[in-house]
């Protein structure tokens, strides 16, 4: 186990973009749309940087899987403070299980103390990759983390669950997926962007990582826009509101 942290990041349509389905239902419109680091992954990276700043890790490696364009997001990760970046370059979108296999191969190369990644990506909303990596790696997982304490060989993780908060203790190395309230990611400053241009960004192929089969198993047959709700009524007072609720039979 080295003292490195692997942070997996995904390039996604920016959270502020209103996503639209293509007229032929073959996908969503991505042309000319702003792309960003998945916000949950940005939180994962921020946490890794803070762990390094506390002297508990030496190297932060940002990794991603996707087309060459993902270099933009990896450069942002380097500007935020990652020491180096690795892009596993593929043209087609991959399923979470394949991503987990690629991450496992990177884990075996770098032997990190921790793998940090967002609890979900805001595009596919799958919430799978971290858990799948932990299963394949046969290591602990702590998902939906809102607090993380390290003591060298163990991590104590507070998780946001439906019933409130849960605390787990896991042996390292482990996979931790990050929730919104873990931290607030830092802003990138211009000098850091300039400096990031000189940091190493390596590109690999799945074959170089020993993952031969990356084909999708699940076929997406159709994309569609969900039905919208009919426009409602406006009322002018609490009394009118109660009357409207009574009329709808919900009181």
């Amino acid at each position: 186990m080295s003292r490195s942290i692997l942070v997996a990041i995904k390039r996604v349509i920016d959270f502020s973009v209103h996503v639209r389905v293509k007229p032929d239902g073959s996908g969503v419109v991505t042309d000319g749309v702003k792309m960003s680091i998945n916000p949950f992954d940005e939180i994962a990276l921020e946490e890794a940087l803070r762990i390094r700043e506390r002297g508990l890790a030496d190297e932060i490696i940002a990794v991603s899987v996707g087309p060459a364009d993902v270099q933009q997001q990896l450069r942002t990760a380097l500007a935020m403070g990652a020491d180096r970046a690795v892009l596993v370059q593929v043209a087609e979108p991959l399923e979470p299980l394949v991503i987990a296999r690629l991450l496992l191969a990177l884990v075996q190369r770098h032997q990190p103390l921790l793998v940090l990644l967002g609890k979900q990506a805001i595009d596919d909303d799958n919430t799978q990759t971290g858990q799948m990596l932990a299963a394949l790696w046969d290591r602990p997982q702590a998902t939906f983390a809102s607090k993380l304490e390290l003591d060298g060989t163990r991590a104590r993780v507070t998780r946001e669950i439906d019933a409130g908060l849960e605390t787990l203790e896991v042996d390292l190395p482990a996979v931790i997926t990050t929730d919104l309230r873990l931290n607030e990611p830092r802003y990138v400053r211009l000098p850091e962007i300039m400096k990031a241009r000189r940091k190493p960004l390596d590109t690999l192929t799945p074959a170089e990582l020993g993952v031969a089969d990356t084909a999708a198993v699940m076929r997406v047959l159709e994309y569609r826009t969900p039905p919208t709700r009919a426009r409602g009524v406006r009322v002018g007072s609490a009394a009118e509101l109660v009357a409207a609720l009574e009329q709808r039979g919900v009181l």
Partner: protein
Amino acid sequence: MSAILVVAEHAGGRLNPSTAKCVSCAVAIAAACAPQAAPIDVAVLGAEVAPVTAAAAALGGVRRVLSLERAENAAALAAVWAPQIAALAPEYTHVLGPSTTFGKDLMPRVAALLGVGQVSDLMAVQTPHRFQRPIYASNVLVSVELPAQQRVVATVRTASFQPAPAAGPAPIEARQLQVPLPGHTRFVARSPVNAGRPDLQTAARVVSGGRALASSDNFQLLYRLADALGAAVGASRAAVDAGYVPNDLQVGQTGKIIAPELYIALGISGAIQHLTGIKDARTIVAINKDADAPIFEVADIGLVGDLFQVVPELEQLIRARRASAHS
């Protein structure tokens, strides 16, 4: 032949309502398999699970309940439960868990151990291997299809299914699995169950507050209205981030997805990430000072006004209405 396994969610000796919704989804898959039979089993893992297995056995459509008692199963640790569910999986064509934080944590680990992908947030069954699910915070729906011979592992979007009705008890079968379990993950603590108020995930009525409440104290206004209505309390991410209420009240893409009969949004602007969580509510009411707030685009009934004035009035009217109904 098809067979479906539902992994039960439970805590404190009580079966979580998410399990009855998963059973409904399993019933829909079984119907899609017809005329082939597709029996439904429920697996209950825990240290002592007798009351939970009894509750699971009373769900309509269940063939039998598997009781997997083991001291290590006391807490629902994904690393501990997943290998046991994976060991049961060869008997089944479909393995389902709820799309709650419990199922979201556990099921992908099960899928990876089985070497298959997972269908997340399954919202409709189109064939035994074709399902609809939401992406992009429910702004897009996709139909996904798996190869017919592949085992289906899925999390079920609980807001899309009604709970399975009660029926005559199914048999309960104790199982002992010889599966080695890891010791690398240990349960430390869990916040106490919030008793006394309806559960946000299953409540018929929900009153939710946003940043406009402006303080933890002001949420009392909302709690009083919720009490008058017999409603659960929810919140937007902004209100949780600001520390007005705890995280388990968050409704939306990254919080809870709910489908109450009545949802009242107070001082919530209506970011798409929040709207994701309430799309299946039958009636949405919005009270907001800002007439242009996006929440009004989805509200069935909108009231532009100061919530600090309107909410106490509304509470009084509802209490008066209840009192006259009882007299």
